[in-house]
């Protein structure tokens, strides 16, 4: 990668950051009321057959270390505040991937009394991965799309 030294230091640093982010985005996963199907598929993408770690992706525990929040499930009344809090604890810039039909529209649980709706009613979403649950390939595709999007910005 070439740095244009005529630019300000800030610009140069931003470029380095984006470069690092693209090469190794750290993910955090939160289930805000899903049926587990999507969570299992997310975990499956980390395991040997799909191995999303080859893209430099790492799933880790603390929101403060994460670049990307990967959410599953509709948002229930109980988990709404938690979801928002996790999002707020993440450092800028942050991105959100919504996985599964539930996360996109409430899916099969539309109209249940404790479901307040989909993820983007609570936090902004960058990439939607449809499916119930999406196949691991689709989740990987979602991650790649996000990385492309960040690259373009």
């Amino acid at each position: 990668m070439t740095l244009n030294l005529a630019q300000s230091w800030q610009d140069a640093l931003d470029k380095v950051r984006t470069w690092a982010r693209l090469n190794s985005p750290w993910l955090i996963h939160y289930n805000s009321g899903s049926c587990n199907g999507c969570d299992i598929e997310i975990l499956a993408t980390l395991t040997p057959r799909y191995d999303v770690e080859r893209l430099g992706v790492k799933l880790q525990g603390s929101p403060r270390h994460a670049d990307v929040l990967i959410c599953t499930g509709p948002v229930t009344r109980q988990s709404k505040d938690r979801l928002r809090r996790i999002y707020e604890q993440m450092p800028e810039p942050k991105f959100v991937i919504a996985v599964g039909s539930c996360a996109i529209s409430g899916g099969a649980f539309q109209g249940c009394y404790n479901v307040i709706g989909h993820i983007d009613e609570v936090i902004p979403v960058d990439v939607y991965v449809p499916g119930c649950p999406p196949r691991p390939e689709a989740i990987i595709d979602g991650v790649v799309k996000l990385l492309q999007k960040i690259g373009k910005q």
Partner: protein
Amino acid sequence: MHTNEHTQKAETFIVPIGPQHPALREPGHFEFTIEGEIVTAASVRLGYAHRGIEKGTESRNWVQNLYMLERICGICSHIHATAYCLGVEQLAGVEAPPRAQAIREMVAELERTHSHLLWLGEAAHEAGFETLFMYAWRDRETVMDILEALTGNRVNYSANLLGGVKYDVTGEQASKIEQGLDYLEERTRHYLDVVTSDPVFIQRTRGIGVMTAVQADRLGVVGPTARASGVVRDVRVEAPYAAYTAFPITPVLAQAGDLEARFVVRLRELFESYGVIRRILANLPPGELVLKRMPRRIKAGEAISRVEAPRGELFYFIRSNGSDTPDRVKVRTPTLCNMASVLTLTVGRHLADVPMILVGIDPCFSCNDRGLVLKRGADHEHWTWDRLRQIGLDYYAGERGSGGVGGTSISPAPLPPCPPALLTGMHV
């Protein structure tokens, strides 16, 4: 004396875990009071994944509910649908054809295989044994491929229909399943060897979280957790459903009651599953897959349907008032029954053992969050098994006495007065 107390107080603090937690995929919140390294009290707060499914069933018709109830849990989706279908068929007074029942059982056992392998990986991950986690999940893909070949879906297979199943097993699929099972059998033997002989792993499991048979019985635990303590609790054997009379299984038991026993029981159960799947494939009854006529409206009445999910007994209560939507669906999932054991077994142990003990029951919070309101305070009351049993007997005796099970005419009159705690619990 005073200072002593003071220092002790200062050393006691509460470790909150969850709802977002690196190790648990699902939201649940625990608070462990610890003194130094030792847990002295534990409490749990559930309900983050409570969606209101039971109430939701009342606004969907019988067929739509099949697909929503399947999504109570993405790991044991098939067994939820099976329990529901069996209950509704019972209400409608019909029975699915034998071939359909056998396919239901086969998919259920394949599901158990995927669930137990998934759990093996999770538990290994919890113990810090990442290699086993990765291997177990790699091999789990074999059974996922089988399920996908059979039903077209990796998760939420939708194999069930009211009155039968959707998918047949072709000869080509059968040989693919056989091949897959051969491979899995060999791998499972290897894993059984690993969990019983790896010295480092054994240090995390042997003698930890010991639950005696008496304790298991008293806490009302179900499934492999109970069987690892020597309690025979397996609906497939006690009250065979689907095709379990034609293709029976032998319950796997262990006596030790510790974490190691839970590993051994679950892994040995896999051999049972492989065996029964092979037998079904070899003797699949011929015939229809689905009933020609399944009524859209279900006769008024009540039905109870019990099945053995990978985690233990799954219980469905379904009440119909004769319309095209259910009047009430109540689900009791195994994790809720097993959760009490976690709170009991962790007390007195090191904090480091807590995740292992928790994962030992194979918790599934999506299943779990069924919204049960237990009131604390003046009207809090403990009900004994005997009293609960008596109430159940009286209730159904009263029903039969008043001329069969009637939709709207169900009256709680023959019941002794119910404490509000139970009533609220029933209706949420």
